[in-house]
């Protein structure tokens, strides 16, 4: 069901464009906040990659990997996800973990909305600057026939701009969820980090073979 209000707004916008192009140009003048622009660009790219039809899964995954390694601080997230086990892990285990974690995240998110037929529309609705503690950009994703999804992007400032350090979906932080899940796996394996690494390896293999197989 198409909401009428955006249509109405678009129509009004169209009219005012015809009537006074100058005023509209003036209205555009206050530049969008750089953090908001960053999220808009990131979300647009991600959505196009996710919903894109006829893109082979491997291509989809590699595009996501590029996106994640440039705009998302996977190292910082990974350290937080491993939590107290990060310090007890050997440097090799840390590197292994970060590599596997990247694989899992890429494989998980690149296929998340793959089979979703409809439109995904993403719009930033606000942001809060917490100074040194980073920024939070709030946005919503509208889907056909479904309640919109509320997202919060936790960002940190870097030399060149911003990097994502967490994504909160409907109140659930992805970093916290991974952390809680992985701690549970480590505990189940007698507090051994290698237990988690093995579980991650077999999950990556599963997801890769699942992605390679034709889907019905």
């Amino acid at each position, binding site marked *: 069901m198409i909401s009428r209000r955006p249509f109405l707004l678009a129509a009004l916008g169209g009219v005012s464009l015809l009537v006074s192009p100058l005023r509209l140009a003036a209205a555009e003048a206050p530049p969008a906040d750089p953090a908001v622009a960053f999220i808009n660009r990131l979300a647009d790219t991600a959505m196009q990659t996710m919903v894109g039809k006829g893109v082979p899964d491997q291509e989809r995954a590699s595009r996501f990997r590029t996106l994640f390694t440039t705009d998302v601080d996977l190292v910082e997230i990974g350290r937080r996800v491993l939590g107290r086990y990060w310090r007890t892990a050997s440097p090799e285990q840390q590197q292994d973990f970060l590599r596997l974690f990247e694989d899992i995240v890429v494989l998980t998110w690149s296929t998340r909305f793959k089979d979703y037929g409809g439109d995904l529309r993403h719009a930033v*609705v606000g942001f809060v600057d917490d100074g040194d503690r980073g920024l939070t950009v*709030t946005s919503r994703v509208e889907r056909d026939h479904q309640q919109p999804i*509320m997202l919060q992007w936790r960002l940190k400032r870097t030399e060149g701009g911003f990097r994502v350090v967490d994504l909160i979906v409907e*109140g659930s932080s992805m970093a916290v969820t991974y952390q809680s*899940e992985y701690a549970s796996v480590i505990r189940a394996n007698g507090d051994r980090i290698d237990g988690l690494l093995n579980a991650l390896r077999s*999950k990556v293999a599963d997801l890769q073979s699942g992605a390679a197989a034709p889907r019905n």
Partner: protein
Amino acid sequence: MTARRSSQSTAARIAGSIIALGLLAGCATPPPESDPEALAEWEQVNDPLEPMNREIFAFNEFLDTYAIRPAAEGYRNVVPQFGRDRLHDALENLKSPLVFANDLLQGETDRAVQTFFRAAFNTTFGLLGFVDIATEAGIPAHEEDFGQTLAVWGIEEGPYLVLPLFGPSNPRDAFGTAVEWYGDPVDLVLLNMGYDWATWTRSGISGLDKRERLIDTLDDIKRTSLDYYASLRSLYRQHRTAEIANGRNQTRLSTTSTSGASSR
């Protein structure tokens, strides 16, 4: 999570402890006090009944794999999207008296007014609620339940609990679910009129509707997680906290065009 709630009812605390003690039978051993980090994690996970919960979770999974999910798939295949949307809207509308009561019990007068007008619009112009015109008119829906009301009243969630059939919960939310099960105004009216079957039909369709809407999300979490149980536990508890806060605990929204990020 609880630091903000000052009005902690003693009675609720005692009740919570009794329930917890009663359930302590199938219980995991906490880490020793010599390992404060492990202990902190154990407290944060809040799942002392994990062994029992995992058993019930496995039972639910069995039920879901062989009965509930196939039924939801069947519903999806037989009823087209348009029909499912109409049914969903109607079910949501039937929940309005309950949501309205919870809005009031939480002192959320604005939201109570919203719920009231949504029900009024949708029941009349929305053809008995089958078309949610209120959302289109700019009054969005929101969820409330008695578990959330209890939380607003300062009652602790208690240990994480997996209920047979109903899934992730805790003593507080389980009690809330039970109260709603017996106290739903629409169901009470139907029962008084002697239409017992209608309340069961409504519960059945609600369950199908809920499960159908979760098919893709749950499939995806199950497919990509290492420990489905632990993922759902974490997601449920975080989502619940956010629901109780009605979005207030999250970031306050400021408009995108104004100040803020200019500090550096």
